[in-house]
């Protein structure tokens, strides 16, 4: 029982990342009809927003410490962050420690701007082109973006820790009456799950309860009719692209402490996220979220030692296996709508 609870918990945070990326993918597909293979790169760029802000906060001047030597035997050059000069060391350290949460504020305008530039500069030229063309151009864009990041940040992962207050893990087992240490779960992953739920809720509320969201939903259902009413739906869809980019970026920012960001982390998520979108149903926002959590949890269960002993290698194919079964039994996915991607 404790093992099952543990894997459900594990699946929740994995599913959170899948759901957030798939949510953005679905938003873009549902509004603009574009299959955006560069969406994983937006997740990666979000994580690098956290890295960038950490580096900005630790911008330093050099002080020579004559009492110590470097690896060549010269006096040691010690980097002192400018932030110490401004706020003092204690406050400076606290700000640096909270770099990742602070990065949320930094990432939102950056990601929205990147989304705008991507959509206006490149993707809008492919609206009327076949999906294969869209996939090719966005996949190419993803490679360009990750190579740019590699050029500036290198190929190695860059540690981007969570604030000290969220390091360590919470003992769910002790709380639920199991033996201590049987169900432990890192604090930051709980934060990630809560944050994802908040973002998903905010996106749904925005679409459901605002006039802007109502128009967008109307446009998703019947773009031409909304246009005939004199509403500039293209402009709103461009804004939605920016919002989808921001959602992917925020997912990346908060994921940075879970796994050190590297330039190809977007690709690691991309294919799985597309499977999530297809399983959830193309164009279905709630389907994307549901499938994200479902597949995340299934992936966790498939990684259990007892499962692997019985079915070796199942952990590597479980998501695709489930996708095949669901698409065979429900060709439109779990919550797919009739007519989407069926022409």
């Amino acid at each position: 029982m404790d093992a099952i609870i543990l894997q459900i918990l594990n699946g929740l945070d994995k599913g959170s990342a899948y759901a957030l990326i798939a949510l953005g993918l679905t938003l873009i597909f549902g509004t603009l009809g574009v299959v955006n293979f560069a969406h994983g790169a937006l997740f990666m760029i979000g994580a690098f927003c956290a890295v960038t802000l950490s580096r900005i906060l630790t911008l330093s001047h050099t002080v020579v410490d004559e009492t110590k030597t470097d690896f060549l035997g010269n006096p040691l050059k010690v980097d002192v962050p400018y932030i110490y000069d401004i706020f003092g060391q204690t406050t400076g350290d606290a700000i640096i420690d909270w770099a990742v949460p602070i990065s949320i504020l930094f990432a939102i305008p950056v990601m929205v701007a990147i989304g705008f530039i991507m959509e206006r500069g490149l993707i809008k030229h492919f609206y009327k082109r076949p999906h294969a063309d869209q996939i090719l151009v966005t996949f190419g864009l993803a490679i360009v973006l990750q190579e740019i990041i590699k050029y500036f940040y290198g190929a190695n992962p860059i540690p981007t820790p969570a604030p000290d207050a969220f390091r360590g893990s919470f003992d769910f087992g002790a709380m639920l009456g199991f033996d201590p240490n049987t169900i432990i779960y890192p604090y930051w992953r709980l934060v990630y799950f809560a944050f994802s739920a908040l973002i998903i809720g905010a996106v749904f509320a925005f679409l459901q309860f605002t006039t802007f969201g109502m128009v967008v939903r109307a446009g998703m259902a019947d773009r031409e009719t909304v246009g005939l009413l004199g509403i500039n739906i293209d402009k709103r869809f461009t804004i939605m692209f920016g919002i989808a980019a921001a959602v992917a970026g925020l997912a990346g920012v908060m994921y940075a402490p879970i796994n050190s960001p590297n330039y190809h982390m977007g690709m690691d998520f991309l294919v799985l996220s597309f499977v999530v979108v297809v399983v959830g149903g193309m164009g279905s926002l709630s389907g994307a979220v549901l499938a994200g959590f479902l597949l995340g949890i299934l992936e966790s269960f498939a990684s259990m030692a007892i499962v692997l002993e019985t079915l070796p290698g199942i952990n590597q194919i479980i998501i695709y296996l489930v996708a095949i079964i669901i698409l065979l039994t429900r060709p439109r996915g779990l919550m797919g709508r009739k007519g989407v991607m069926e022409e």
Partner: protein
Amino acid sequence: MSNSKLTRRGLIKTGAVAGAAGLTLPTYLRADGHAGYLNAPQGDTVTLGFNVPQSGPYADEGADELRAYELAVEHLNGTGADNGMLETFSSDALQGNGILGKKVVYVTGDTQTKSDAARASAKSMIEKDGAIMITGGSSSGVAVAVQALCQEAGVIFMAGLTHSNDTTGKDKRANGFRHFFNSYMSGAALAPVLQNAYGSDRKAYHLTADYNWGYTTEEAVRSSTEAMGWETVNAVKTPLTQTDFSSYIAPVLQSGADVLVLNHYGGNMVNSLTNAVQFGLRDKLVNDKNFEIVVPLYSRLMAKGAGANVKGIFGSTNWHWSLTDEGSKAFVKSFGTKYGFPPSQAAHTCYVQALLYADACERAGTFNPCGVVEALEGFEFDGMGNGPTLYRADDHQCFKDVLVVKGKENPTSEFDLLEIVEVTPVEQVTYAPDHPQVAGGSLGTCNPGA
């Protein structure tokens, strides 16, 4: 860099004609029997092929390897700011005037850390650029693949960073040589240190990367630790493409284990270690003992990726810039002065391999691969940063001291991440050529390619 226009066929013909005419191609012992050899240097240059990961996840390690090779070429040609390890190398065959009087030039290939891409780039360097020796790499899969290609083609392969037992075990080749240590040596070096630090009554849980290197490392560490009394409670294979290891790490505590061994390298190691620390494993008390984590193969570049998570964690390494022997100091000074930071273990092994190859050619008096093989087999040397070292003839594996290191608690810089806790003497990590962990395969005979 060299971009020879000669074709492979042209070069073979040239070599054959030169041999048949009894021209002055230098020969050495067994190489006498060969009329010629592939890519015999023409003119006053000799071309080496540096096959390193220039793209993909190990690109930073590849960049460091390339820096080391460039430094080695400068030292071999006598054009560097100093002579690096040429000053400390026990052999005095190298004079800083190239190799056998020919200026060293080089071409580079990108392995991408993929076996097929690495073979393609090596093949291109051999056939199009006339490379007479291929060296480099950051993966055992790549090393085994390129080594086999070099054997078939008839050029020497001086392996870069490859740690699997198989490279000089079941997949060994006569034309291939490895200076880097291997999984067996890591296990043999680590076990006594772990016993001293954590005792003999421990329960270990292994997470193992699901590929060749992972298997040999798990086997080596398991057998070494079980021999000193540890029990292995579980060993789980993890996909090489895995990025989030939470679902593999979460059940560790439920298993009753009090040590987690991460048989991972590169991005796998960074992520699995980060995840394990996030789960607070090192803060737990299990079986009335502190829970511990072990990383059998450490790399400074990878440790940097894991950040503060490496603190206090044991592992092994082939070399470290903080060593104080004259060879290490000379190399660190050359590299650090040129590039502004200390070299990695990958850079060190590549630099040493380039010098060892050049030295072997000089001692053999020929570039003929069979002559080079003869000169390297059983070669004993010192002054290259690892103490007295033997290139064993039986399997072309270097035998030397192995370093056991620990993540430093209070690093003074971004390079100061590991501290050496023990230099394990070579006798402790030496094994018989037919040891079960390396058994199988055969060197075969050297192939000069013509």
